[in-house]
């Protein structure tokens, strides 16, 4: 059946905005990355690959921010996926109490990153923070820390906050995945006398692979988007210990006014994300089974 040509009109308003405010800037990042533009003056010149050379060779802060971002990503991806999976299994039954708990664990997701940052700034505060207070009154004063001020652990403090923020959302995705597994598989396995570990290993885990793919892919993207949280909680400090790629782009562009260089980092950033996404899908797809 022939569809009237008017169907093309349905794309116009959305496509116009999307082209202007998403596609055009994304492509022009590439263009600016070959220039020395400062973002303000009208004239700038082309400097070839100089920005890329600087990023790859001479800029230790950039390399550090890539390292921090990867460390943050691995910690969050592993820890958050584990927490979400374990608690999804604990709360899989649809009882009233489990509904309530799932809703409670999901709750932080609806808060703004700035609010979450303030909450955890208070928890981690070295002087009047809850965490050090609790450690002191329970006689573990020797464990007190400057959780965000100590460059060796600040990135983990941030990663823990990120897990607190988003694990509930991943838990819900896993619960939906668990509910999609046919019950008769479990009954058959029990009749055959399978142990709980065997059931998990042979039924739950492989059939949960699609949900795990979603959770890990989403967690990874979120780790790269953690800009708001890092910006509001540490601003990348102390001494660049929590600088991630996106906060570094912001600093280079809007504090150093080096738009050309910031654009080059943005292009590299996009390439890193594309590469990691590709690897993930290769690895996770290969683990899929169906019964």
């Amino acid at each position, binding site marked *: *059946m022939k*569809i*009237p040509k*008017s*169907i093309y009109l*349905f*794309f116009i*308003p*959305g*496509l116009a*905005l*999307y082209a*202007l*405010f*998403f596609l*055009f*800037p*994304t492509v*022009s*990042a590439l263009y600016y990355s070959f220039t020395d533009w400062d*973002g303000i003056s009208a004239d700038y010149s082309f400097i070839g690959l100089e920005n890329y050379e600087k990023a790859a060779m001479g800029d230790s802060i950039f390399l550090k921010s890539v390292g921090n971002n990867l460390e943050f990503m691995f910690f969050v991806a592993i820890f958050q996926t584990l*927490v979400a999976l374990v*608690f999804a299994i*604990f709360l899989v039954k649809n009882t009233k109490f489990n509904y309530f*708990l799932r*809703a409670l*664990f999901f*709750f932080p997701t*609806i*808060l*703004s*990153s*700035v*609010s979450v940052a*303030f*909450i955890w700034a*208070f*928890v981690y*505060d070295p002087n*009047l923070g*809850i965490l050090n207070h609790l450690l002191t009154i329970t006689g573990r004063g020797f464990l007190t820390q400057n959780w965000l001020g100590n460059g060796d652990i600040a990135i983990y403090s941030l990663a823990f906050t990120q897990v*607190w923020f988003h694990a*509930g*959302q991943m838990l819900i*995705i896993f619960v939906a995945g668990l509910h999609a597994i046919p019950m008769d598989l479990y009954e058959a396995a029990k009749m055959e006398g399978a142990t709980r570990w065997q059931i998990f290993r042979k039924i739950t885990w492989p059939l949960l692979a*699609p949900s795990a*793919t*979603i959770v890990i892919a*989403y967690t990874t*993207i979120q780790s*790269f988007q953690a*800009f708001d949280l890092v910006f*509001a909680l540490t601003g990348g400090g102390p001494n660049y210990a929590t600088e991630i790629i996106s906060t570094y*782009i*912001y600093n280079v*562009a809007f504090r150093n006014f080096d738009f050309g260089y910031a654009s080059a980092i*943005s292009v590299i*950033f996009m390439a890193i*994300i594309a590469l990691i*996404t590709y690897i993930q899908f290769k690895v996770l797809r290969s683990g899929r089974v169906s019964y």
Partner: protein
Amino acid sequence: MFFRRFAVLIYAILILVPVIMVVLTSLKTLEQTFDNPLGIPVDGLILDNFRNIFQEQTMAGYFVNSSVVTLFSVSFTLFFASMIAYGITRLNNWKGNGLFVLFTVGMMVPPQVNMVPLYSLVSSLDLTNSLLGLILVNISSTLPVGVFILTGFMKTLPKELFEASTIDGAGNWQIFSKVVIPLSLPSLSATAIFLFVMHWNDLLYPLLFITDNAYKTLPLALLDFQGQYLTNYPMLFTGVLIASVPMVIMYIFLQRYFVAGMTSGSVKG
């Protein structure tokens, strides 16, 4: 079984304690917070922080800005995304698939990637310090996820529906507005919730485009409070509470849709 209950209890405490702490601290003075950060002071709780924050800050203005930006961004994203989803569903050929890919590519690109050229674009269009500018950028940034969820839903509608409507003489606009939209309401409401949370809480775009207090949204205003109040947590948490109230109320009443919306937005396997 014991371990399971214990672990769940710990997790519940980890969520509840910070939340209770925010509420309690907003009802305490700074001295009371210093003396005992977790306890309830003997001399009672106070509402001074709420009075002070409304006196010292243009809270009502920030609240209105956030509401205007969120309402317009959500409704226009939904409107444009559902039109595109309808177009893709009806075309159902390589052109439709190509457009679907073009739009959903945007989901994989974090908004921080193009913040530099986007900033130059918005300032050259004279749309900085403008709620309109914020709304336009918001719409284009959430169109991908909207198109993704709504196309997924509309593809499940029976083809006969479109054919029967066409035979009855309905044009595209009539089929879209009279048939497809009413049938898509569950998916639309889930998407709406997802978009509400995203736009209400967004910091990046206001941070990039707004410097004038008259146009600041709540998350950006909160960030400023950090500069003014430093570690005056009672004031900061009063701000957090006011900024979170609309989402919390929506969450309590529309919980089912939140869970559906916030997870459908993430399903891109």
